[in-house]
């Protein structure tokens, strides 16, 4: 039997008049990584909170490991781990004490608790800081501790809500490696992110959340294919050559100031060869040629109707 690790149908949630989730459908196969991608305020955290039994949905159904999040929250809780967007550590304890607390609450027994905690401290590079108060931890260290606490009992489904938001590039890559290791061990991961790059790096499937609905769902490649092909950009030495080429390739867009032509392409080699053959036959020299394939940024902004935010996404990350 292949029950999906996460199965969501028509999930709805509003706060007063504000509709946050408006019929979200999502299926995550066991052992895979799905990225829930969406701009700030899209409802990613709300979705994760419903799936981890912190919030009750207004409507729809959600199953985690086959357990209904509303009717059997206890069953759900046995198999999940959540590392939220906001740190969920006990700031008055040390890193080691935090991990031991989790081990006790997961009933690992005294001996296994100790070995598991030592293991995690090692794995997450927290050995030196283990006995220090959390006030002395950097953001990256706190995040790692947070995740280590989630992993004490090796849950089968893990929710990571913006796991790398606010981290420096190095810590971000460490976090990515950790996620990859988890998946290699067979854990199902649902991670939310505002970073397209992150979704592209980690996810088997990407679900784009916008306006309370999943507006696209598929592998990164499938999503990229949603946009009609890329284009070929040809630059010429002078206006005469540009004019001639423009007449030759009638389906091209002309950029007079840049002395360039843009020819749309399906991304395959065929179009490129045809274009070059025709230019060659006419004896036209191409100064410069570049091929553009659509990236996830294009897809994301096309789907969510927001443009020119690719630079803003990173810096907005620290808001809730």
């Amino acid at each position, binding site marked *: 039997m292949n029950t999906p690790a996460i199965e969501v149908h028509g999930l709805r949630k509003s706060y007063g008049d504000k509709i946050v989730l408006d019929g979200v459908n999502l299926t995550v196969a066991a052992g895979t990584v799905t990225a829930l991608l969406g701009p700030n305020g899209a409802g990613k955290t709300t979705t994760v*909170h419903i799936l*981890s*039994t*912190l*919030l009750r949905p207004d409507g729809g159904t959600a199953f985690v490991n*086959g357990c209904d999040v509303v009717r*059997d929250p*206890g*069953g759900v*809780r*046995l198999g*999940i*781990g*959540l590392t*939220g967007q*906001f*740190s*969920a*550590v*006990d*700031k*008055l*304890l040390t890193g080691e*004490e935090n991990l031991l*607390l989790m081990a*006790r*609450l*997961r*009933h690992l027994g005294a001996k296994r608790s100790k070995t598991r905690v030592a293991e995690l401290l090692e794995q997450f590079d927290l050995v030196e800081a283990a006995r220090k108060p959390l006030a002395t931890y950097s953001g990256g260290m706190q995040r790692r501790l947070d995740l280590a*606490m989630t992993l004490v009992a090796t849950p089968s489904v893990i929710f990571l809500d913006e796991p790398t938001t606010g981290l420096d590039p190095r810590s971000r890559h460490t976090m990515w490696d950790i996620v990859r290791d988890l998946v290699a061990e067979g854990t199902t991961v649902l991670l939310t992110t505002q970073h397209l790059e992150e979704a592209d790096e980690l996810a088997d499937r990407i679900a784009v959340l916008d306006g309370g609905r999943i507006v696209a769902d598929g592998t990164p490649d499938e999503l990229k294919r949603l946009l009609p092909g890329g284009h070929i950009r040809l630059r010429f030495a002078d206006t005469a050559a540009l004019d001639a080429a423009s007449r030759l390739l009638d389906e091209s867009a002309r950029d007079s100031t840049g002395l360039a032509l843009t020819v749309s392409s399906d991304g395959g080699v065929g179009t490129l060869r045809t274009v070059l053959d025709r230019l060659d036959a006419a004896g036209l020299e191409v100064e410069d040629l570049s091929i553009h394939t659509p990236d996830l940024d294009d897809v994301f902004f096309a789907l969510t109707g927001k443009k020119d935010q690719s630079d803003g996404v990173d810096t907005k990350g620290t808001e*809730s």
Partner: protein
Amino acid sequence: MTTVTDQRLTATRISRQSHVVADSITMLRRNLLHIVRYPGLSMFTILGPVVILLLVVFVFGGTLGAGLPGVDPAGGRGAYLAYVMPGILLITIAGTASGAAITVAMDMTEGITARFRTMAISRAAVLAGHVIGNTIQAIIAVALVLGVGLLVGFRPTARPVEWLASAGLIVLIAFAVSWIGVAMGMQSKTVETASNLPLILTLLPMLGSGFVPTESMPAGLQWFAQYQPFTPFIESIRGLLLGTPLGWNPMLGIGWCVVIAVAGYAWSMAIYERKSVR
């Protein structure tokens, strides 16, 4: 399919029940560790009653004591110290409810509480950790305040049995009042509310027989003073430590403890689940 689900559900339920005690102990350890690491709040709950004690005994005690029925005006201060001590002990317990409320209110805003709620830990265990931790704190506070009382001349006439009974009653009251403190902490949206709400509790010993006999109060207040829970608490402790007539007070006091504990338990359990994550 259904049977499999049913079996797993039953298994889940059994394992959850058997863990309530273990989880309560874990949560208690966590709260005690907090107290040991950051004793500031606990010190405060002891300092308050000690200041009140010294103030009422040395500043007001001479006059107040002389006004007590059947007291020789010359020995007023000593007589008042004896009279007021049970009330001070109850104020100490009520004061720790403030500490519990603040601790709980702060804890509820912490991400760690959200984490607990995503784990298969019973809410009873989380709450019990707070309540028992606070009860222990209250007992230590009462012992210290009593110690100061003895230092400034409080001389109880109790025999060992009566000491034991007083100790038992104080544990019971501290436990019951802790539940109310925890519930108030859960109820409060902010830490400020949490520190203010339990002040009502600290007033109750003064609006009972803690500082002056209820007979000396105006009719309406007197009626309230006679029927509120802190009066039987105070009268029981007074009777046990100093040999004044006990009457039905111990029974009434124990009854009130049960009522208060059950109410606080139901109240905080109800809020814990409803409480939003942020």
